[in-house]
């Protein structure tokens, strides 16, 4: 388990901290999502875990050991896949993989075998001898991911790995990433695309302004006891709202707390009797966007 304890960091020249007493526990064997708008602190947190940034305060441990110690024992234990295309455009796909394998100190036979595995995993065999600068955006993202997997890391840090790719490549990447825990690689996945996080992460944390707003399993975060309904044709009669305990919201929406099956059935019957058309009814679950808005009053993509 990766535990982040009271991590704080402010970049030189910035008045606001990028990380502000941030604490988090990330379990093994999962794809763990870090969700938050731009500037929330996701990349700074990832950089601190990857060891490329020394935070001013706080500590990070992997399985109870300080990160520096883990890295000293096995520098392939944690791998970073940065947001940018972090490889050499003038080298071919295979040359890039060979270079980074050399940096990871993989020796001859193991190196060749691992390069072939990574090429196959990322479906890059066909373009192995093409220069990286000639690859499409989707193939570049796959190469970025393949390099991260060269050292069979225990923990893979993915920083917005699907930015700027077509839907087909995104689907391929998400499927590949979702399969990694089964192969022994835990994943920390940052994104501001809530649909992606909802698709592949079972555990996640929502960050904003360098803090954890909410953390836990996806199910628990999305579970909602509040019923939301939207009606057409103007506001509901006050008497009806009073009878069923409806709280008016924005745009003809109403909220109903702790609605049971019987009370919900009674409400729907009254609406039908009054001839009021129902446009939307949401019960039991909400999406991540709504969770975020309810926490911050801001959209994830702000």
């Amino acid at each position: 388990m990766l535990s982040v304890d009271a991590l704080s960091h402010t970049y030189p020249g910035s008045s606001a901290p990028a990380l502000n007493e941030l604490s988090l526990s990330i379990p093994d064997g999962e794809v763990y999502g870090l969700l938050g708008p731009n500037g929330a602190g996701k990349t700074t947190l990832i950089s601190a875990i990857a060891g490329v940034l020394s935070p001013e305060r706080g500590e990070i441990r992997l399985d109870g050991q300080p990160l520096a110690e883990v890295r000293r024992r096995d520098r392939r234990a944690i791998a970073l896949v940065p947001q940018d295309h972090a490889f050499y455009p003038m080298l071919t796909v295979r040359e890039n993989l060979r270079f980074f394998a050399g940096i990871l100190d993989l020796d001859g036979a193991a190196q060749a075998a691992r390069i072939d595995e990574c090429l196959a995993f990322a479906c890059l065999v066909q373009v192995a001898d093409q220069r990286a600068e000639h690859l499409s955006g989707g193939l570049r993202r796959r190469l970025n991911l393949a390099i991260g997997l060269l050292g069979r890391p225990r923990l893979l840090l993915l920083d917005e790995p699907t930015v700027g790719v077509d839907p087909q490549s995104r689907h391929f990447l998400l499927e590949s990433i979702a399969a990694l825990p089964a192969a022994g690689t835990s994943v920390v996945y940052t994104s501001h695309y809530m649909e992606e996080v909802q698709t592949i992460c079972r555990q996640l944390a929502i960050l904003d302004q360098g803090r954890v707003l909410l953390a836990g399993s996806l199910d628990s975060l999305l579970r909602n006891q509040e019923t939301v309904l939207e009606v057409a044709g103007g506001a509901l009669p006050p008497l009806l709202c009073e009878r069923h305990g409806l709280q008016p919201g924005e745009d003809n929406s109403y909220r109903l707390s702790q609605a049971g099956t019987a009370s919900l059935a009674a409400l729907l019957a009254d609406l039908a009797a009054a001839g009021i058309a129902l446009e939307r009814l949401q019960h039991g679950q909400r999406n991540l966007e709504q969770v975020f808005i309810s926490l911050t009053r801001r959209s994830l993509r702000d």
Partner: protein
Amino acid sequence: MRQLIALWRKETLALWRDHHGLAALFLMPVIFILVMTMALHDAFMPGASIDVDYGIVDLDGSVHAQRLAAQLDGNSSFRRQSAGNDLAAGREAIRDGRLALVLVVPAGFGERLLLPSGSDGKPTAALTVMLDPALNPALRLAFQSQIAAALGRLRADELTQRAAAQFGLSFAPGLQARDWPEEIVSVAVQNTRDVRPPSSVQQNVPAWLVFAMFFVVIPVASIFIVERQGGTLQRLRSMGLSPTYLLAGKLLPFFVVNQLQALVMVLVGMKVVPLLGGEALIMPAGRGLFWWWVVAAAVSLGAVAWALLVASLARTIQQATIVGGIGNILMGALGGVMVPRFMMPATMQQLAEWSPMAWGLESFHQIMLRQGGLSEVLPGLAKLLTFALLALALAVWFNHRKMQ
């Protein structure tokens, strides 16, 4: 070690595919060496012909006037062309730019060759030189000196012949038409033996080699900035690669590139320049060659360290190109690459002391022109190595800071 090999291989592949970088490192200095060697060919060669045409208007028509012309033909560094038979034709030839100088031999020149003006109560008409007003004054003086020398030889010949006739001495036939050998030979003083002064190729090959070596700044910075901007440095750092290793990974490939540059430039000087009519580069032999290589290695260390410093400081490839390129041109201009130091005024020569290119060039000249050894090149080597260490330390420090 595997990390270093991976880094060296990557740098080599990246440079091999950077055609602009290769052109800047190899093609540009070869062109400069060929062009500048041929352009400055005569400026470095004593007694070589001067690219200025002159003519003679002979108003005398005597045998003495013809012998004066023959003397000038045989010994003058200027090129003789036809100037016509009268003053007007001579003036016209200068006015239309065909000739820069016209020597007018006055009527009665031969008759009064040994009579000083007025010694017999009659005036002696002087030799006149008509010239293009745009002609370099030094060339005008050189031409007048050559006429004076030819005139002196002519008078000496005439006196010898008349004295021989007076005293009944036999006189070898055809002596008056003999060629007078060049009686003044320039000799450069060196430590062990005397040879002629440096040729154009000996000035230009080391000069443009030093200049070209410093141009590794362009490919070094390009690759480094691609690494930084693309997040590759961040990835390498996360893989546990230290900034010192990263810089060491760049040092060796570009050191080798610099040595290849040295080999190519020397071969161009030895083999290609003679094909174009220039003098072949003479390289030192034995221990001299070893010290020559030591100087090349020190220049290379300075150049690569400077390139790493520029690459560490610059944020964009444009910045690196401007800082590195202009920095190199300034160092070259100050250091005697474009204009040899001995042609500079004293103040500029003092300023040149601050250019690393001057340290390298001066050390090369110590070996190639003065047969110098370690003691002669030690000051230059010490300055270059100090410069390299300082630049390298600063580059490491800046990278550590940026990576944090």
